[in-house]
């Protein structure tokens, strides 16, 4: 009986159903009142795809950059090189940062060659060139610094390691022998140029230190330290003995020039007292001048009836004090530098 009642109630319910036209029209009327956000429907999937691409790209980039599995000729190796290119571009403002980045990349290239050698992976000419380029880049970056010495050791170590590995691989890859040889030559030329330039830099640094130590006014012209020559003699003359001694001890001038006082027996013939041995002051003229003026030779002794004994002319010189010896050493030291073209 309940079922019959329920059925009849349901039938009543169906009779009270709204007209479909009415519900559709009312819905359309109500929806029109709501402002449309069509751009969200377009941008939302685009944003979703973009977000996914960014996350995927970042994850891939981190893996490509740091993984030992990503070696040259790996699918993701170009991702690594692009990231490294970006690192270098970001570091161009600061020479120190750029040198750090270049050195890091060089060590990475060496590590890659090491791993490839361990795994007996195929090595090609471009891999050799890649290492050479990294070495050159690191050298140039260090060279741009005021004091590249902290980087030189690491660069040298990396270059030696890579050269050693590449040479050992050349035996397994005969086709690479020529490429390795050419790379070694290129590197050799670059290293020679760098070291020559570094040597000049180091010498200039040393000369500048000494010039400042002597209180000389110096400048750099055409890559060389230039001092005012008129000041040299004046300063040496004005130096007190203890200051001179300190300079000697600091600069080691005694090792550069040895000056020994000469004492000779003079004959009965008087001869004019010779002037103390002095050297000409260092001048700025480009032509070198004699360092020391020889004293005037003593006149020859008259011959005697006695069997002729030819004696060497002797010059009687007053004994030089220690201070004078030291001053003479300084003068000869600067003259030596001038003759070497290190100062003018």
């Amino acid at each position: 009986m309940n079922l019959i009642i329920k059925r009849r109630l349901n039938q009543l319910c169906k009779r009270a159903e709204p007209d479909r036209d009415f519900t559709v029209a009312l819905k359309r009327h109500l929806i029109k009142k709501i402002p449309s956000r069509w751009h969200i429907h377009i941008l939302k999937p685009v944003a979703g795809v973009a977000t996914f691409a960014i996350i995927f790209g970042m994850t891939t980039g981190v893996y490509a950059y740091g993984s030992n599995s990503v070696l040259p000729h790996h699918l993701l190796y170009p991702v690594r090189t692009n990231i490294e290119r970006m690192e270098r571009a970001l570091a161009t403002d600061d020479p120190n940062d750029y040198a750090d980045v270049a050195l890091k990349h060089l060590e990475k290239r060496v590590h890659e060659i090491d791993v490839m050698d361990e795994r007996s992976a195929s090595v090609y000419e471009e891999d050799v060139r890649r290492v050479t380029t990294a070495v050159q880049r690191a050298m140039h970056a260090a060279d741009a610094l005021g004091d590249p010495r902290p980087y030189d050791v690491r660069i040298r170590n990396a270059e030696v390691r890579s050269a050693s590995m590449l040479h050992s691989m050349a035996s397994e890859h005969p086709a690479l022998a020529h490429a390795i040889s050419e790379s070694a030559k290129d590197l050799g030329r670059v290293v020679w140029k760098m070291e020559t330039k570094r040597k000049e830099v180091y010498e200039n640094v040393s000369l500048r230190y000494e010039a400042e130590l002597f209180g000389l006014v110096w400048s750099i012209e055409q890559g060389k330290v230039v001092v005012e020559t008129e000041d040299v003699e004046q300063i040496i003359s004005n130096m007190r003995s203890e200051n001179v001694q300190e300079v000697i001890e600091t600069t080691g001038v005694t090792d550069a020039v040895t000056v020994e006082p000469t004492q000779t027996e003079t004959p009965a013939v008087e001869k004019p007292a010779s002037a103390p041995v002095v050297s000409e002051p260092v001048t700025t003229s480009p032509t070198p001048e004699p360092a020391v003026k020889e004293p005037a030779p003593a006149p020859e002794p008259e011959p005697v009836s006695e069997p002729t004994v030819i004696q060497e002319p002797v010059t009687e010189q007053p004994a030089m004090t220690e201070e004078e010896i030291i001053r003479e050493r300084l003068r000869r030291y600067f003259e030596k530098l001038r003759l070497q073209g290190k100062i003018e």
Partner: protein
Amino acid sequence: MKRKDFAGFYDKHVARIYKFVFFRVGGDKHKAEDLTQDIFVKALDAFDRYDPSVSESAWIYTIARNHIINTAAKERPQVDIEDVGHRLYQDWEGLSERLYDEGRLLEAIQKLPKDEADLVQMKYLEGWKYKEIAAITNKTPGALRVQMSRILKKLRKILKQK
């Protein structure tokens, strides 16, 4: 507010609210349509303030009931279900015995206590689910099922008397 959200809400409740209104306005189709439109316009205006902790059915039912009460207070007293039964019966006057039985059923419902008559109306005439009715009446669905079983027995008894 998203169009999609309100469209889904509308599709879910429009038939039920129409029936709710229909049986309370004496079966007047045109009036039911007008009031249903008013109710959903009010719902649209308040949709952004809708509290998800309240069930959607209870929320729209409250809007509909309040609107009908306010409208009836302005025009005339709320039409009883008996009038609906008469209207339905009169509309299909001369039809088969089935329709006559349905008229008698509506009259029998009218003889029930109001809360029981409302329950029968909401469940069978308006199409509410026990869960939705429970949210409005603060009773459990189980209790409502038990009550409905008793109501149907009563209706049977009433129908047998006539």
